[in-house]
């Protein structure tokens, strides 16, 4: 529970470039607590009718919901390592509440059973839940509905207490209610009113309720207006008129339920809010920014204390010491200075501020350009997604939409000066529209429609190319390559990131999970990024072979031409060389100092490799991706070995 420590340590310790999610609720921890409340009732426990369809789900709704909770739990361990999760079963015959330390408490809320106490999930929680849903291991008889149903107010206050105690000061607290009962208290005005009051409490506590309604079969409906519209408040993080407020899932449809739930597993968090977007002098609108694309990396390793009953992570604390005397220094003594020429150059805190002051945070358009002027290589870091908000300027949404349409239609981009917060380093960004998600031409249907702030490099960030000589392809050779490229198109001719999980990240957590659960460690990772080489060989193996042979021929031609050219030059006669093929860019000087494989083989057979110069040896080795370090004898040996193995 020491996460708050991060807050103030971050203020003092970290470099200024630290990406901090910005929020009005400055004092809150940027963490999410997610509580599943799954309704246990006879209808929720009813197995679906047998079906011929292989894809049909065979689980009842409770199991389906628990399965999705299990999946979310595993995913959140990877993606939201500090966030909490818990599961309540409600409507059960049994009742259980646990106190702060996870011990059963006398306090109780009838027919609410805290199955997984709200916390950062432990390996044990994952294991318990898995054996519950996958092995049907219900020895405690939890999935027995209470004959009297449940009072929703009890569920809501139970959730209230869990959030208050276990997730204090969390920036995001969410209660997911999964049920098929759209009217839990028909005709009971007092029970309904109590529920509403408790719902108001939850709202005031900053808990957001989301209902995942389940219907059974085509005919049944889940009418939110009967009850739930009175206890659910508009989601403060959702944009105006969010159409995806509710998703009605078919009963037991594990996949759609999981899809709906997993799409909400990460709380929507703004990177910045109420940012001024200056379209021109005197025309400002307000936008919010989101980090939709964000690198996920494995959590860093930590230090673990093994001498106690259970292994636990040791939390580090930092004290500062002066380099010269190793005396401990207090925070107030520490000053900021820049290294310069062997010493430090000091600025007072006021001066530091002044130096970094580039005006207030803004996105200020300085003009528009043709999209083609944004070159492929002008890439620095992830882009931030912006979406209009009416909080600063009324009418922002329609102006934003007009700009978005215009940029899409004319193939233009905006260029803007962007300061993401006071004292942040200013950057120039391209403002690029993303197409509507239902647009068939969109290559990125997995991304929302809006504008993106795409950082452009400054001149300082661009590296010059090295001097290299290029030998150009011939039309025939390009045509041969075209055959290969045409055949190996990816599905929809687009890149779809959802198809490529990060293999190192997945493997890291897979192994950790196995270790934590004391399971067998798998030996083969499932790496979706590996090219499907078998299919490639099968589909274009012949084409590649043709291309290789053709390349050898063209190369020989090219070298002959080079030879002729050199001779001509030696003749000292300015007679034009025999006209080379237009596509070949004739080069001056030595055409190919790295010999081709055939020549190499010849030299090898005649034992002439030792006659090569060290420089040439290194070039040849490097050309084949081999190590170029060592003495000449070693280089020759390495090259001989390679020729033997490969030619």
């Amino acid at each position, binding site marked *: 529970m020491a996460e708050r420590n991060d807050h103030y340590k971050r203020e003092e310790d970290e470099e200024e470039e630290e990406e901090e999610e910005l929020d009005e609720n400055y*004092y809150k921890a940027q963490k999410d607590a997610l509580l599943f409340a799954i309704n246990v009732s006879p209808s929720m426990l009813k197995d679906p009718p047998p079906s011929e369809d292989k894809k049909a789900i065979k689980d009842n709704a409770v199991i389906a919901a628990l399965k999705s909770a299990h999946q979310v739990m595993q995913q959140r361990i990877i993606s939201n390592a500090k966030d909490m999760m818990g599961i309540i079963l409600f409507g059960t015959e049994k009742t259980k509440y646990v106190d702060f330390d996870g011990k059963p408490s006398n306090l109780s809320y009838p027919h609410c059973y805290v199955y997984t106490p709200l916390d950062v999930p432990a*390996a044990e929680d994952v294991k318990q839940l898995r054996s519950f849903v996958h092995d049907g291991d219900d020895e405690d008889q939890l999935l027995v509905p209470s004959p009297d149903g449940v009072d929703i107010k009890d569920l809501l206050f139970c959730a209230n207490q869990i959030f208050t105690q276990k997730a204090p000061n969390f920036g995001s607290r969410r209660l997911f209610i999964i049920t098929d009962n759209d009217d839990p208290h028909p005709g009971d005005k007092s029970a309904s009113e109590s529920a509403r009051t408790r719902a108001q409490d939850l709202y005031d506590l900053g808990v957001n309720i989301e209902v995942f309604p389940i219907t059974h079969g085509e005919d049944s409906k889940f009418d939110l207006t009967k009850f739930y519209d009175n206890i659910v408040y508009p989601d403060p993080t959702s944009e105006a008129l969010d*159409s995806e407020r509710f998703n009605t899932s078919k009963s037991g449809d594990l996949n759609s339920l999981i899809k709906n739930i997993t799409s909400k597993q990460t709380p929507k968090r703004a990177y910045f809010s109420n940012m001024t977007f200056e379209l021109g002098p005197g*025309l400002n609108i307000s936008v919010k920014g989101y980090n939709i694309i964000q690198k996920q990396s494995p959590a860093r390793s930590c230090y673990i204390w093994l001498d106690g009953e259970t292994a636990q992570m040791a939390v580090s604390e930092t004290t500062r010491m002066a380099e010269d005397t190793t005396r401990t220094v207090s925070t107030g003594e520490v000053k900021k*200075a820049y290294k310069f*020429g062997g010493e430090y150059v000091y600025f007072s805190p006021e*001066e530091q501020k002044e130096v970094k002051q580039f005006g207030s945070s803004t996105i200020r358009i300085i003009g528009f350009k043709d999209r083609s002027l944004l070159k492929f290589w002008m890439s620095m870091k992830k882009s931030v997604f912006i979406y209009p908000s009416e909080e600063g300027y009324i009418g922002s949404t329609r102006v934003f939409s007009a700009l978005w349409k215009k940029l899409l239609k004319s193939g233009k981009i905006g260029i803007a000066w962007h300061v993401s917060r006071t004292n942040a380093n200013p950057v120039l960004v391209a403002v690029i529209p993303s197409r509507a998600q239902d647009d068939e031409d969109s290559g990125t249907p997995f991304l929302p429609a809006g504008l993106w702030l795409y950082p452009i490099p400054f001149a300082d960030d661009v590296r010059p190319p090295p001097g290299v000589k290029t030998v*150009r392809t011939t039309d025939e050779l390009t045509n041969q390559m075209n055959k290969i490229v045409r055949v190996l198109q990816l599905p929809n001719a687009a890149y779809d990131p959802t198809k490529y999980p990060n293999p190192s990240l997945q493997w890291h957590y897979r192994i950790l999970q196995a270790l934590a659960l004391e399971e067998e460690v798998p030996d083969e990772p499932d790496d979706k990024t590996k090219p499907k080489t078998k299919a490639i060989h099968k589909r274009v193996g012949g084409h590649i072979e043709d291309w290789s042979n053709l390349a050898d021929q063209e190369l020989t031609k090219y070298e002959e031409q080079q030879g002729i050219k050199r001779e001509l030059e030696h003749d000292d006669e300015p007679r034009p060389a025999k006209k080379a093929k237009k596509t070949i860019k004739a080069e001056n000087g030595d055409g190919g100092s790295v010999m081709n494989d055939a020549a190499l083989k010849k030299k090898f057979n005649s034992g002439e490799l030792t006659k090569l110069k060290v420089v040439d040896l290194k070039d040849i080795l490097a050309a084949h991706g081999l190590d170029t370090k060592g003495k000449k004898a070693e280089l020759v040996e390495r090259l001989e070995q390679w020729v033997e193995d490969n030619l």
Partner: protein
Amino acid sequence: MADKETTIYILDLGSSMADCHNGRTESDLDWSMRWIWDKISTTAAASRKTWHVGVIGVRTDETKNAMEDQDGYEHISVLQDLEPMDLPKMRNLRDSIKPSNTLEGDCISALIPAIDMIDTVAPQRLKFNRKIFMVTSGEAPLDLDPDDIQSIADKLKSNNIALTILGIDFDDAEFGFKEEDKTELKAANEALLRSLTEACGEDLGTFGTIAEAIDELDTPRLKATKPYKPYDGPLTLGDPEVDPRAMRINVERYFKTKKANPPTASNVVVRTDHGTQSTSTLEDGDEMQGVEYGGGEFAAVKNARTYKVNDPDAPGGKRDVEFDSLAKGYEYGRTAVHISEAEFNITKLETTKGFSIIGFIQQDKYEPFLNFGESCFTVAQKNSTADSMKLSSLIHSLHELESYALARLVVKDGKDPILVLLAPHIDPDFECLYDVPLPFAEDVRHYPFPPLDKVITVNNKTLTKHRYLPSQDLEETMSEYVDAMDISTYALDDEGERTFEYAAVDDTYSPSLHRINQVVRDRAIHPDKPVPPIPHILLKYAQPDRDLVEAAKTRLDDLIETAEVKKVPPKATGKKRQHERARPISGLDVDALLKMPDNKRTKIDPDNAIPSFKQMMSNANDVSDFSEAAKQLGQIVRQLVTDSFGDRNFDRVIENLGVFREFMINYEEPMLYNDFMGDFKKRLLSGELGGDRRELWWQLKGARIGLIDKEASEESKITREEAAEFWKK
């Protein structure tokens, strides 16, 4: 590593340099030193052991050089031998660079000791950049004949030394300067010096007027970088190990973009041990090639870590553990997973170096905002005709078919695989594949947003007319405005026509990088001067160009009129807002429900503190209700602290105080909060609330929930300074 470098500055320090000329209010010396200091401090900032700087003064009162015994070398003083530059040396130079009391001294003669100095440090067999810069007003008689000029030039040439002569008020037609009342002597000297640089040849000799050099100071200089090659090996299609038919091209992949970060400030403390010689070197001085951070007023701060674990039996619930007793591991959720040192790589994916194509996509199906990192470019293995031609065929094929290639890249054995997108680039004399990194499945978050081109209501109706959607008029005026503000060809070309791209990458400089470099250099040269203003060039693109805005003004006015955007007034203050309570989706008035006697909250429930506090505040009738709510919440907070086992309740305390503070600002009752906090601080720090609670104090500070000052609430009497003072114990 940049190249090794020796630079000698020959400075004219004659007494006439103290005068001001041509309408300047700065002496000639101060003026030209602007440029010299900029050069020297740039070298010092780089802190490289292989960059040597020497300074020779001419027309000095003294004579101090290796040739001082010979005739003709009088009034030439070596002020600094060729040495790596640092701040103390700059201080020394600052003291010694002063106008002298003499007019005597020959700056061309000074070249002889300069050449000798360079030859000693950088003998010809070594690879060095050798430079001499001479700054002179050209007013002293030069005793030379043309033969001497030639022999000096030959010497410079044979030693491969570049000579740049920058004259004060020298004529320069190209730059557009001509001194009107030039003395004959100066004109003759100018001609002589010019002939010297000409004799050195175009490669080595440069002649100019210092005004031009000073003018260019504001234009940021780009730091030269050596090409860096993160990958070097085969680019494959298919697996050559499995099938000999697989494609294999040997390539090299270099950085194309790489963020040039501004220098970051280090933590330092004022030295307490003046006098004792420090021999320590900073461990983390990785960018420093060997220059030691020893002397000076400040000492570096380093961090020492201690480790704690939870222990219910220890006071405060935590106890220290020895670092040596700790094992390495990872967290899986809240489970600590220990992995022995020998097996530590077990979670690391085993990978083999390689660059393999997965498949191809259409260029128009890719959006630039999908990439998330710096770009590289790939060229064929150096000097390999075969690879070059093969790679060229791939580049041209991608170009013809308007495709990109998706590839998996492992830069070294054991490194994490990344996915990159390869794009063809063809110039008349340069071809390559550019690549950018792409996100994996986990890197893309799925946040739902409503569409921008239509409004879908709760009842699933689609609207095409709505206040959130632009009208036809708005779309048209927007379109005209965007076209009017086009800067694709707005920059001036050499003929003064607007044909060049405006704000092209080559013309934009990182404002923060150059700003910090500028002020640090300036402070190093002039420790007593205030921070200089930001050079205009760094702010050039902070605003749209004035002429452009002027030209587009009517379009913008039309757009503003059509758009009808209204600023939301600054937080409609407190008391009026309080009744605008959020309602559930049904719109049900829960407030009314809460006001019913049965439900009304008059007492804050400690278990449900925040909701009952908020409801009590919102249903309050008068000020006494506010202070009652504040009193009760305050009591709950104190109790939470007192009862807290270790830091267990701290987060609840912070949350309660955060809400407390926020509501007292909104309800314009800041004093209720401030009074509470004043009392709370005393009790907290005196140990009255369950012992040593300083940890909580730090956390409160970190959460920034101190006194409400005047800026946060007009009703407050606390100044910003007083609020800051509050945190000091």
